[in-house]
Each structure stands twice: as C-alpha cells, then as structure tokens.
C-alpha cells in the first residue's frame, strides 16, 4: 500500500514554476533519493511535501500518516551556528508535536529524547552546547531531533553537506539502518554515488522530472552515466 503519493506537483514562487510536474509514490520503508543540480527545485519540492510552501498545481496525499509522524532534517541556518542551546534542549524540541495540548514536556517525551540520543550515540553530549559541536555532531543532534518527531517518515535535506567523508559515511549508515527498520526516507542529495549506493528509488529532477524509478533502472540510464562521469572528471 502506498503511504504517500505525489501527483503532478508544480510549485512556483513566481510565474515560472521551480518544480514542475513531479509525480512519485512511496511505500512504508522506501528510501527515495532526490538528486539534481543546485537550483533544480529539490528543496522546494521537499518544502512542498512538508506543507511549508503552497503547491500551485497537483496534490500530495498521505495515506494513514499524520503530520506528527513525519520528521525533517532541514539544512542548517546561519542562526543556529552560534545559538546558545544545549543538545538536550534541541533534541527535546523534536517532541513538541506529541504533546501539543500541554505547555510542558511529559516524562514520556523526555524518555523518547533520551532514547534517540542513545540511538545516535550522542548521549554523552547531552549537556554540551550545540554551537560548540563539530559539523558531524550537529547533524546527529538534528537527526535525533527529527527522530523524536518521526515515527514513520523522515525527510532529509542534504544531510551530509559540510561533513568530511568519514562522518558522511557514518551518517549514511545510520540513515540506511533506519530505513531497514521500516522508516520511510526521502533524502535530497548532491552526491549521486551515495544516492545509488544507499537509496532504493531515485528521482532525478531539473525543475521537471528527468528520471523516476528504481535505483537499478537509474544506473542504466544515460543521465546517470553522464552525471557519474561528470563527477569523476571534476
């Protein structure tokens, strides 16, 4: 059963759409990588899925998924770089969508936050300030926060940007592990090689879709060969 379908979605801030005619559907546990060049509308599409921007055409339907089962790992903002908050506070804020009627966090929320800290192996950083962490640690913290919010679907916007290859590899492993445990993953990536290494489905877009299908089909296409070759020639 499809848990999410995206039908002919177009999004445009002005007259010319940034995202045009995108369709895909996902089952529970799918791992979709959205690839494409800078400015190809990947982040905008993700914001559309999350309901942060309005769709100008088409529709996105969730089947049996509530808003508070979706987690999101956004790109880091300038504000966060020197933000005085400790890791515990940041991760706990992911639980906000669970207790919307109460003004405070429940014991259950705190346990959930702790569980995710342990899962990502950053429990020892709990009292540390977010601004003093390395890039890789910060991404883990934000991922832990996203996991507090997510039960079934996780959206990641270029999670490895600015990380060194080792940290990036670790983060990809964690995401793959989550996917194997049944979490549906939608990840935006610059890194085509990792996308085909870890993802099951690929959406390659340049405003409009250039390719959508399984990883194996994608690897056989000329676009992939050109892109992968292009990366190697760099």
């Amino acid at each position, binding site marked *: 059963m499809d848990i999410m379908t995206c039908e002919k979605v177009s999004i445009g801030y002005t007259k010319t759409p940034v995202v045009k005619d995108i369709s895909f559907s996902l089952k529970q546990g799918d791992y979709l990588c959205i690839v494409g060049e800078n400015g190809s509308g990947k982040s905008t599409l993700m914001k559309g899925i999350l309901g942060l921007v309005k769709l100008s055409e088409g529709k996105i339907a969730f089947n049996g998924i509530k808003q508070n089962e979706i987690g999101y790992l956004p790109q880091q903002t300038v504000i*966060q770089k020197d*933000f005085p*908050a400790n890791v515990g506070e940041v991760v706990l*804020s992911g639980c*906000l*969508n669970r207790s919307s009627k109460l003004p*405070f966090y429940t014991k259950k929320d705190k346990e959930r936050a702790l569980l995710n800290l342990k899962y990502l192996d950053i429990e020892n950083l709990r009292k540390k300030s977010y601004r003093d962490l390395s890039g890789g640690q910060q991404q883990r913290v934000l991922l832990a926060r996203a996991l507090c919010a997510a039960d079934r679907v996780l*959206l990641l916007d270029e999670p490895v940007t600015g990380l060194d290859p080792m940290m990036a590899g670790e983060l990809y492993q964690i995401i793959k592990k989550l996917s194997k445990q049944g979490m549906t993953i939608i990840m935006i990536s610059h890194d085509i090689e990792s996308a085909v290494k870890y993802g099951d489905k690929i959406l390659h877009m340049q405003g409009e879709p250039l390719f959508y299908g399984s990883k194996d089909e994608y690897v056989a296409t000329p676009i992939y060969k050109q892109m992968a070759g292009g990366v190697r020639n760099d």
Partner: protein
Amino acid sequence: MIEFLKELLGYTFIVRALIVGVLVALCSALLGVSLVLKRYSMIGDGLSHVGFGALAFAMALNLAPLQVSIPIVLIAAFLLLRISESSKIKGDAAIALISTSALAIGVMIVSMTTGMNTDICNYMFGSILAMSKSDVYLSVAVTVIVLILYVIFYNKIFAVTFDESFAKATGTKSGFYNMLIALLTALIIVVGMRMMGAMLISSLIIFPALTSMRLFNSFKSVVISSVVLSVICFCVGIVISFVYSTPTGASVVIVNLVAFCLFSLLGLIKNKV
C-alpha cells in the same frame, strides 16, 4: 545602607519607578533572547521610535498617552514583522525607514504644538518621575500577561527561535509565535518607554540577552541569566539615577554596558581555560 534604602523607598515616585521598571526589565529580557537570536533586534528599536511618534501625537491632542500609543505600536509591530519576514535584507532598511520617519513625525508634531521642552527630553531619554498611579496598574497588568504567555509557550518559543522551518514542518504554528513575540515586545516597549526613554528602551531588550550569551551555553540558562541580570542592572541604574540626578534610561544602559564588558571578559577567560 539601610538608612539610604529607607530614604529611597520613602519617595512614592521611586517606588512606582521600581515596580514598573523591574517588571519591564524582566519581561524585556525574556523577549529579548528570542529577538536577538532571531535577528529581530531592529524591530525593538523601530517600535520604540514609533512609540515616540505616538506619544507626541497623543500629547498634541491631549489624550491619554498609553491608551493611544499601545494600539499604534501594536499595529507597527505587526507591520515590522511582516516586512522583516518578507525579505531579510531590504527588511532591515525598511525598518530604519519606518522608525526614523515615526521619530521625525513625532518631533514635528511636538515642535508645532508645545515646542521642545523638558517633557520631550524626558520622552527621549527617560525620567524617573514619569509614572503615575494608573500607569503602574497598567504596567503590572501588561507584564503579568507577558509573563504568563511566555511561560506557557516557552517550549514552542524555543523551537520557533532555534529552527523555524523544522517547527513549522512538524506542526507548530511558527507564524503565530513570531507574531506573539512581536506583539508582546510592542506592549513592553510602550510601558517602559517613558521611564527608559524612546531612544534607549531597546537596550533593555538587547543587552541582557547578548550579555548572557557571552557566558552561558543553554537556552534556559541564557533566559534565566538575562532576567536576573536585567533586573539587577535596572535597580543599580535607578539608584545611580536617584543619587546623581542622572537620566534614568542612560544610567540603566551604562550599567548594562558595564555588565556586558564584564561578561565578555569572563567569557574570554572561560574559553581560554
């Protein structure tokens, strides 16, 4: 010392100034943390200038100052937030445009009606004598509202301050909380403006948060430190203002500046160790 305190608290105007001032300092420090972190400090400055224009307007028409300026400044807060959200870079300039215009209009109104007198000087730079009895009641009511709302929404305010798009994506109405912060700031500015002065009230919002961030690393500790620091600096400032007959606003700002330098120094030492 006790003699001095007795003498100090013997004056009704000092007691009033202390009550209103402590409450305003407390609330502005709370709101200031979010405003500074969200890069909205300019909104506070803009609002105080609009507040000055509104006060001048009320005075020219012989109306009650607070009742006129509260709605005007609330509307301004709404507009300023919209402007700074729509486009970050131009928003900065637009706020400067609005705040200087409001100031200019205020000055024009004043010079055409009463002329530049001590009242205006007090509005600009603050006066310890500014609070009447009804002002005290109004201030207490406003600050209690701000405090309650802040405590109730503390977790949401943190989430929206730290990461607006995540908060929004996971179902927190970030637009509502941004607006709440802006409107509460407007209220606090209007209430505190006549004592601190329109030129200086924004310092109450910006200084405690910035000072606390030099030294503290978690959001909660920054908030608590800001509040404590803000209240202490205010009290020290008002005593200085009383003893040396200096303008209240300027005295408080100077004390805040000293605290900022001190905390910066401590922060440097802490990082070195």
